[in-house]
């Protein structure tokens, strides 16, 4: 571990400004090559959108960053230090907070219990329910969530409410890097806007955000950079300001840019 630290700080590595980098990450599930030699840099004050078709490897990439998947090859660099991310607990200690695509909630536990699962507040050796409940109300209302009670088991909540709980959990404890896997999939218009505002707020407070999304409108609304995954490989890295919608779609699907084939006049 310390030897690796020396490498990270050695003269060979460029002056690091990333909060999180992936270097040459590859991972296979049996014969399926879910990720092939993927590099990714997340800078402070940046929202990186990761887009790609179904099965492109986006969630696998999220798993690698969250510590739930130990990749076959490749490293993570956090604050200039190379490390093997071997457990979700370690990822969270390093300030990588993840909203999983399936939300990773426990249905029998209530909202407060889910928010603080694995990082409970204690007071004299026992759980401090009062402090946790107060924080839960605060973070939930900041997200504009309307839950009947923070003491309701999440099994009784709607899809959108559950998604808000998962996002709220990631925001507890001020993450350095926020990783979100399809965070707006189950949300309505208002709540989607809240989540996007939250993403911008996290970015503006100096943190990095990785946003995995299907929804190009969301991506264009908040992303600074758009990274395209296609069949496990990087297939484009766009500046969100300049790249056109067509370029990104072309990189996702792998067909040549449609601009050539379909001039504006042909549509009419």
């Amino acid at each position: 571990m310390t030897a690796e630290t020396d490498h990270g700080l050695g003269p060979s590595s460029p002056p690091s400004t990333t909060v999180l980098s992936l270097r040459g990450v590859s991972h296979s599930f049996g014969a399926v090559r879910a990720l092939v030699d993927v590099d990714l840099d997340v800078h402070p004050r940046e929202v990186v959108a990761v887009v790609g078709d179904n099965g492109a490897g986006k969630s696998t990439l999220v798993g690698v960053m969250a510590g739930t998947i130990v990749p076959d090859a490749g490293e993570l660099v956090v604050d200039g230090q190379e490390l093997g991310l071997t457990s979700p607990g370690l990822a969270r200690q390093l300030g990588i907070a993840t909203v999983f695509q399936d939300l990773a909630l426990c249905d029998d536990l209530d909202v407060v219990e889910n928010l603080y699962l694995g990082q409970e507040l204690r007071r004299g050796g026992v759980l401090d329910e009062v402090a946790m409940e107060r924080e839960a109300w605060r973070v939930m209302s900041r997200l504009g969530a309307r839950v009947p009670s923070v003491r309701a088991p999440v099994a009784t909540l709607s899809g959108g409410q559950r998604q808000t709980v998962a996002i709220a959990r990631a925001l507890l404890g001020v993450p350095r890097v926020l990783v979100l896997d399809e965070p707006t999939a189950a949300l309505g218009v208002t709540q989607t806007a809240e989540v996007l505002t939250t993403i911008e707020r996290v970015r503006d407070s100096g943190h990095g955000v990785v946003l995995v999304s299907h929804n190009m409108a969301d991506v264009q609304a908040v992303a600074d950079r758009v990274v395209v995954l296609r069949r496990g490989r990087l297939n484009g890295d766009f500046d969100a300001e300049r790249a056109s919608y067509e370029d990104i779609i072309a990189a996702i699907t792998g067909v040549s840019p449609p601009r050539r084939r379909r001039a504006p006049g042909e549509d009419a």
Partner: protein
Amino acid sequence: MSGTSLDLSWRHGGAPWGRWRGEPGPWPVIGALVVLSLVFQAINGNFLSADNLVNLTLQSASLGIITLGVVLVLLVGQIDLSVGAVSGLAAAVVAVGFVQQGWPLWVAVLAAVLLGAGIGGVYGLLTTRLGLPSFVVTLAGLLVAVGMQVRVLGSTGSVNLPYESWLVRFAQQTFLHPVASYAVVALVLGTYVGSRLLERRRRVEAELSAASLATVAGRAAVLAVVLLVPTWYLNTDRGVGAMVALFVGLVAVADLLLRRTAWGRSVRAVGSNVDSARRAGIAVRRVYVTCFMACTALAALGGVLSAGRLAAANQGTGGSDLNLTAIAAAVIGGTSLFGGRGSAWSAVLGVLVIQAISSGLTLLNVDSSVRYVVTGVVLALAVTIDAVSRRRSEAGGGTRR
């Protein structure tokens, strides 16, 4: 935003008429107990006599301690089919160690309980490291434990414990002095009210919905009745058995650990959704191993106490239907077979139901076949309530992986 005090669930200090979090709570079991008591009392006036209830509580204690362990394992969504056999093995170890090997009794008791914990540790390793289903691992453990029990007991197959040993005296003849029993009740009540008031003040300061003073008083009154009436009634006869006090004390400790510590929370989380728990950073393997170890250690303790109560250990100790009775008691008491839901107190409620059926039918001189059938029907009812309430809470909107 914080809502009214009706938002406060019973589990978090609210009134009984507040939210029950979609769970039926203990009411079905309590209802079953009341119905059973009334029926048996109507048929045989001795059923609710203090003498019979003292016996009933004494019979409940060792089974209850075993059931408490089963509750822990069920909470993490696993099962232990070997608790009866482990308790029989522990009884054999105590009897042989003390009587035949001449160990000090406390050494024999400690050895038996540690052996039990060790067996659970092996279960934990096999299920978490090799991914074997606990159903099969503990079934294998059952056979091994039965074999070891026969081996330890040797050719005679039965070892008697001397009546003057403290284990037998503790299990058979030791009762709390009435004054001591009321002092314990007063202490519990005082602690309860104090902690409720403290929590209430902190909640008010945090601008959270807090229980009204009337609710606190009402809950304290309910607890007072629940503790004082049985204590008083048992004291009109021999009193509260030391073994019964030990059982209830262990349940109370387990309940506090489950509700008030991070370990307890991780137990429920693992039972609810192990994959989510792992991704929340919980050391899932450790949770499984601790639950298996606690279960078998409690099973061993239950076996030791039943050896004390019978003043003997033989090949039948912990045998026949004890495994299934302990598991049935946990489920009847309200712990879900599906993991994640339940309470330590379901050991008390479930065992009372089982023993009420057994004691009532014995008073009626009914054949044991009827006892099995009635217990089976009650178990089926309990599982039905469990499954239906789970389905209903899911219909609330969530999707389960």
